[in-house]
């Protein structure tokens, strides 16, 4: 043994001798992409310990053994370069900044991973543009920015949360929203306020966000187990830097929003003609008359703001030392909506601090405080005082104001809850109220307070082993108020109504986990194991008064004793999660990667015997570009500088709310007699909804990362759906459904992302990025009735069909108008022409579109419904271009979506209504004379159901939902930093001015306001227009 050691030492020694025989000197200059000298680059000789560092001029000198084959140049932020020495003594190198995709880390559950070793699928959102945007919250700006992530904003309400779907809609009856994780902890999210819409993500200041990582596939999300089926959005807030200097930044923006578009309605004269024609055709006396004073009211202009002001100010202080860092920010934002009563005001504070106590202990705390005040209005799409709904129907020959009325509005206070008649003999049908009054006088507000505090302690136990404990406390409190004036609108019949509610939602999360890293040779191992517990607690209380003693008491709050009828209410609930998780990552030589993770979740929503679920995930990757054969080909090395193949599989779940396993009785009062009645028929055997996620992908860096390309194919195979299985109404089951683990669906698709630098020079650069997603959702099975599979669950406008995507639009096929009598015509289920006789609502077979004869009576039923279109888009994406010329920068972002159809209910129920309402201009095309060819049937007052089929989809109102939107155009000018420093004695370090336009253009065939106003089920009904915002701002850094 000893001999062997001696021998070995000798051999090694002689080896070293041989290599160390001669040295030579190599010199050179290292420059960056733009040709500027690069300091601090490490130059090392392959196979030796020798290295050198470039100086301020980018120059280096290195002594290397004569047989050294190559030099390696490395620097943070740049791709390593190996250069063969050959016979050269001078080697100049141009280093290319490494693409972000490869140098960055990916924020994953309970840790971070290097992008190059990450084998899951995620999208990182560039958060820099958010700081410039006038936006109430970041979710509203995510659309078009990441492959596989579909984000839609229905309408222009500033407090309305965006709808985010990651890789499709992954549940039918259960939750479809992604899990939101902020600084590692599940964040209370959703639309939680009582009186208004409320966006809990507005509690996070968009300027405070360092990074948004959207985890999409199974392996990336499996560590979140039962809550990962809809994907995970990881938000990381900013931290200070360790450079010892304090950085102060100040941002201010001012913006002006206007409606993207409004409806084209009839003017007063057209209305009078149409309304009287409807009545005459119904045998009724004329009721509409032209205004003697020529009144022609544009009701939409009374409810919409033009140039609604938005201001935003933000100041942050950040910095740190080698041991401690801090980030402190204050934000004020006040954004008016386009409906005159809509606005959101926010005050937000963040304080992030962390410090190393000693080499073993690190502690930190992240605190968010925010106060957000939302003001809104009655948004009911069919509500009589619904703002948009009533503005569409209000009569244009009627004045909004009337100085003779004590209120100043044209209403019949104190006699009636009606509009003033104006020149007409009757008021608008259905008791629609004066939107000028209701929108300006009634109050809907939500005053929210949020405290989210996250404390952690990290212990460095052994080399490579860290233990972290995180305790997060999150409180969301909403104080809602609704004040309805007694004089008109919703408050009239109650003689004034005031309502307050307080909702408090609390959550604590305690995480404890160990991270362990170990490298041996080329083997690298990363292990995470831990545990997490979460408890949610919510309670609410409300009070209201009716018959208010004086209008004075309607304005602000419930005031004791000011109302005759008093009500109170409240609720209380608790739920919890308890989880254990573990993950192992292994890689060999940065070339082969394997990951396995598992989470065991327990949830209080499920029965004790079924409440635990185990969710495993696996993935693997191969950086084929690290293989020798790749390295040997200079072509591959240059053009495909980094290629990673990856695949993953995981089973994740979808969490449930409430206690669906229990049959319960809740309060059911018979007047003032207390009572209890079944409110839920439970299902004791209910289990987690399960999503099996598959992903195969490739990441390619081209030209050392100047261009990056990513492709993923994915499949979410979902079974055990927690489906609210419809029960026959004659069963009398509360809600007419019972939740069962039955039914399957899948989402399959491909994602492409491509980014790069098209032009790069000192003065001009052009960067672009695009992402595109194809998505195919399919319901593969539902439940059975008596052993027979059910293939369809029909609803009013939608049907859930096996073999199609969720909620396809389904209804009668319109055949146009009978040219002889103006009746609408349809094709029945087997293609026969059917005439719908307006007079009696009955259907008759018809011989042709020009023949008025009513044939044999028939009917249209469920079997006559046809597929009219998908409600879910099948493709979407976004394209961004950034041009920089000297100090100017121009960003242009376009996004698109399509493949879906929209059922335009606004058109069906309001724009071509057959009641005494105003209409859209489409109704001017109505049938009036025999022989006329048109698509708009004869008008008959009161026959909306027979003429328009209200409540059902018909192909006449189903339109394409495809669109292309010019989402953002942003121009900025950055002041020359050198000159700035000179001019301000170094006090101002950077200065930037910018102007921006959001939603500047929309290209679509959709006839409504905006195809994005449609709900997920493809229904668009009286939603406010989208905002078009122009803004100006400044960033200053001190």
């Amino acid at each position, binding site marked *: 043994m000893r001999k062997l050691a001696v021998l070995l030492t000798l051999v090694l020694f002689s080896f070293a001798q041989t290599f160390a025989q001669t040295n030579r000197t190599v010199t050179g200059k290292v420059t960056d992409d733009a040709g500027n000298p690069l300091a601090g680059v490490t130059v090392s000789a392959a196979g030796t310990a020798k290295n050198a560092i470039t100086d301020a001029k980018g120059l280096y000198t290195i002594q290397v053994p004569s047989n050294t084959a190559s030099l390696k140049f490395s620097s943070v932020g740049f791709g390593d370069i190996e250069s063969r020495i050959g016979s050269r003594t001078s080697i100049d190198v141009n280093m290319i900044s490494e693409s972000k995709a490869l140098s960055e880390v990916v924020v994953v559950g309970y840790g971070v991973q290097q992008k190059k070793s990450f084998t899951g699928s995620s999208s990182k959102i560039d958060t820099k543009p958010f700081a410039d945007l006038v936006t109430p919250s970041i979710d509203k700006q995510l659309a078009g920015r990441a492959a596989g992530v579909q984000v839609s904003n229905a309408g222009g309400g500033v407090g309305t949360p965006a709808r985010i779907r990651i890789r499709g809609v992954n549940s039918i009856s259960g939750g479809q929203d992604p899990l939101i994780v902020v600084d590692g902890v599940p964040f209370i999210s959703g639309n939680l306020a009582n009186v208004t819409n409320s966006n809990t993500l507005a509690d996070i200041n968009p300027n405070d966000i360092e990074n948004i990582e959207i985890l999409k596939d199974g392996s990336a999300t499996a560590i979140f187990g039962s809550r990962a089926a809809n994907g995970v959005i990881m938000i990381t807030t900013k931290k200070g830097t360790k450079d010892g200097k304090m950085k102060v930044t100040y941002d201010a923006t001012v913006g002006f929003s206007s409606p993207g578009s409004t409806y084209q309605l009839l003017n007063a004269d057209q209305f009078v003609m149409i309304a009287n024609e409807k009545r005459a055709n119904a045998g*009724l006396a004329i009721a509409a008359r032209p205004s003697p004073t020529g009144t022609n009211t544009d009701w939409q202009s009374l409810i919409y703001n033009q140039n609604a002001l938005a201001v935003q100010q933000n100041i942050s202080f950040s910095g740190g030392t080698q041991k401690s860092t801090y980030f402190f920010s204050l934000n004020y934002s006040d954004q008016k909506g386009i409906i005159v009563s809509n606005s959101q005001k926010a005050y937000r504070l963040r304080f992030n601090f962390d410090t190393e106590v000693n080499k*073993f202990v690190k502690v930190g705390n992240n605190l968010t405080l925010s106060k957000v005040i939302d003001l809104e209005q009655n948004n009911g799409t069919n509500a009589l005082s619904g703002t948009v709904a009533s503005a569409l129907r209000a009569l244009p020959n009627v004045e909004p104001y009337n100085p003779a009325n004590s209120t100043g509005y044209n209403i*019949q206070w104190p*006699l*009636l809850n*009606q509009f003033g008649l104006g020149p007409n*003999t009757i008021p608008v*049908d*259905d*008791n629609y109220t004066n939107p000028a009054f209701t929108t300006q006088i009634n109050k809907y507000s939500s005053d929210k307070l949020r405290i989210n505090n996250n404390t952690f302690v990290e*212990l460095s*136990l052994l080399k490579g082993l860290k*233990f972290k*404990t995180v305790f997060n406390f999150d409180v969301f409190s909403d104080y809602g108020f609704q004040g309805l004036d007694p004089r008109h609108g919703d408050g009239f*019949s*109650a*003689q004034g109504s005031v309502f307050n509610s307080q909702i408090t939602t609390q959550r604590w999360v305690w995480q*404890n986990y160990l991270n362990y890293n170990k490298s041996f040779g080329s083997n690298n191992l990363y292990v995470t194991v831990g*545990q997490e517990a*979460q408890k949610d607690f919510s309670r609410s209380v409300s009070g209201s008064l*009716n*018959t208010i003693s004086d209008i004075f008491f309607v304005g602000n709050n419930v005031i004791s004793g000011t109302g005759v009828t008093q*009500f109170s209410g409240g609720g*209380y*609930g*608790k739920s919890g*999660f*308890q989880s254990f998780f573990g993950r192992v990552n292994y890689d060999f030589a940065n070339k082969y990667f394997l990951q396995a993770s598992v989470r065991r979740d327990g949830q209080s929503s499920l029965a004790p015997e079924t*409440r635990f679920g185990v969710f495993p995930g696996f993935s693997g990757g191969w950086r084929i570009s690290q293989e020798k054969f790749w390295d040997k080909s200079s072509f591959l090395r240059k053009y495909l500088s980094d290629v990673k193949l990856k695949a993953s599989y995981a089973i994740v779940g979808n969490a449930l709310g409430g*206690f669906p396993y*229990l*049959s*319960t009785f*809740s*309060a059911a009062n*018979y*007047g003032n*007699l207390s*009572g209890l009645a*079944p*409110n839920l*028929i439970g*299902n004791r055997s209910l289990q987690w909804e399960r999503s099996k996620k598959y992903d195969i992908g490739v990441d390619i860096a081209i030209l050392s990362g100047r261009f990056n390309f990513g492709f993923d194919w994915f499949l979410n195979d979902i079974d055990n759906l927690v489906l609210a299985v419809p029960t*026959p109404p*004659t*069963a*009398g*089951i509360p809600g*007419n459904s*019972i939740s069962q683990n039955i039914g399957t669906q899948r989402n399959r698709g491909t994602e492409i992302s491509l980014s790069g630098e098209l032009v790069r020079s000192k003065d001009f650069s052009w960067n672009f990025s695009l992402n595109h997603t194809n998505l195919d959702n399919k319901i593969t099975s539902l439940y059975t009735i*008596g052993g027979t599979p059910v293939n369809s669950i*029909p609803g009013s406008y939608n049907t859930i069909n096996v073999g199609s995507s969720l909620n396809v639009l389904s209804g009668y096929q319109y055949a146009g108008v009978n040219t002889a009598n103006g009746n609408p015509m349809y094709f029945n289920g087997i293609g026969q022409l059917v005439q719908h006789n307006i007079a*009696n*609502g*009955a259907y008759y077979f018809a011989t042709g579109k020009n023949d008025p004869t009513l044939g044999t*009576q*028939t009917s249209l039923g469920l079997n006559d419904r046809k597929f009219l279109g998908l409600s879910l888009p099948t493709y979407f994406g976004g394209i961004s271009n950034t041009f920089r010329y000297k100090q100017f920068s121009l960003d242009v972002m376009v996004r698109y979506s399509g493949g879906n159809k929209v059922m335009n209910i606004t058109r069906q129920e309001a724009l071509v209504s057959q009641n005494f309402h105003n209409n859209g201009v489409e109704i001017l095309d109505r049938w009036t004379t025999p022989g006329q060819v048109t698509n708009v049937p004869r008008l008959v007052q*009161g026959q909306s*159901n027979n003429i328009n089929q209200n*409540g059902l989809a018909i192909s006449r109102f189903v339109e394409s939902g495809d669109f292309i939107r010019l989402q953002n155009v942003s121009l900025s000018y950055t002041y020359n930093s050198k000159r700035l420093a000179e001019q301000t004695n170094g006090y101002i370090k950077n200065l930037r001015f910018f102007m921006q336009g959001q939603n500047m253009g929309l290209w679509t065939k959709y006839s409504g306001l905006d195809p994005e106003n449609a709900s997920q089920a493809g229904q668009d009904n009286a939603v406010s227009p989208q905002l078009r915002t122009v803004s100006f701002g400044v960033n200053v850094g001190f």
Partner: protein
Amino acid sequence: MRFNNFFTATAISALVLVASSCQKVLDEGPYNAFTDESVFTTPERALLALNGVYDAGQSGSTTLAGRGYPFGAATVEQGDNRGEDMVNLAAFYQITYQGTYNPNTANNQAMWDNNYNMINKANIAIDGFRKVGSSGVISPTLALQYEAECRFLRALGHHELLVHYARPFLDGNGTAAEGGVPYRDYAVTGSATLDKLKTEPRPTVAAGYAKLITDLNFAETNLPITQPLGVVRATRAAAIALKQRIYMHMGQWTLAKAEGDKLIPATVTPLTPNSTVALIGGHRLMATPGEPFGIPGGNSVTAENIFSVKNDALDNGSVNGAMAQMYGSADLGGRGLVSVSPIIWNRAEWLANDLRRTQNNRLGGTANGTSAAGLAIMTTKYTDYINRGDNCPIIRFAEVLLNQAEIEARLTVGTVSQRAVDLLNMVRNRSSVAPAATQFTVTSFANDVAEVGAILLERRIEFLSEGRRWPDIHRTAMDPIVALRAAGIPAKVNNGTTGSALYGIGVPVTLGQAAIPYSDFRFIWPIPNGEVTQNPAIKQNPFY
């Protein structure tokens, strides 16, 4: 190194501690509701469960939740708007008024869903009451009473369904296969009962009526004569009166008479209607026609009211359902959506100075305004415009009397019945300013058919805006006396017709909306789509 060991130990013990203590995190249950096991455990909770069934009858929580479906308001509003004696003025009841139903129509679905929801709640409660009765938590008598109350509601609900969704019993004695509606008499609480239910096709109408009678016989036996809370819970008299009504729908006049005889004394006092007291429950006509309603403060809880469904300021059909809102004059705080039709108002048989014209009606503002063109005769039976707390009248003693009058008249074939005339006079005289002068005698009628005709007209006047018109049209559509048959759904004035000039005895009435013959498919409502798609055993009504 010691330091490290210390931390490692700390960390590991923390993990273990957390893991063990967090077990409690999952031990949660609902706080806003009871679990089903814990409801039927005390007498107090049993009573709460009973109230819950009444609540489902007052205002269901499924389709059109909170709008008074089925018996808090909708039975009145749908019953009136299907008939010709009230006019729908806006779009609210237009589909009902014009008979343009389809299987997705919300009203139609709400009536179906909420009735069956109440019925299943009743069935679940019945199982619970049997349990607490047999285990001694409550006395067996009380358990039977609670069950009887549930079965009364179950019968009431099924009958409402039969008159809307099925052809009348008198159409071939209800023997047409699959012509009725499902009669649910067992609790559905899970997959076993659900599967059973899906194998049961629609029964015949006759089978449904047989079960109604069984339920009501049980109710009659086990219900108390009075209830501590008065008319808002079922009593023996209510069960008898409902049975009398149902036997009439079946054309079983002798059986119907027997029920009426249980309540009406042999001697009645037509000239002092108020002094005749029912044999069970102390019911009597109030002195004036306004009293059983809101004048003064009646609220359908007087001795005349046998069964009313409770509404109050806390719980009612809301501004979109409560009768005072729907039917109330707009100038008084109602929405003025439904008015009295000149069809009935202008009839000369309804005496000009009849107190019902003034005590139960007024010329008031409507959804069409308060100008002369917007005015119409509006009911004042429901007057709590602000708090909407008017109870919903389901059975009044006046109905028992008019039912019996009709039964007696029909049973005395070929001659005019004195007893029937007396019973008719009881109701009519109460509203007369000079009963001795205006009352009927047997000579007022040419024959028994004319007598029945007068009684049917009297019903339209007496129960105007109480929703009784449709059940009467339904049961007389195939009346054995052909001359009395309702003409399907009768012709009506146009939807939305108002104007003070339209009203006045003898003023001609323009019937703009044609009658729908009995044979037309629209005479009955469609079975809602939710049912036919989820329950293949249930067949849709023809042409829907």
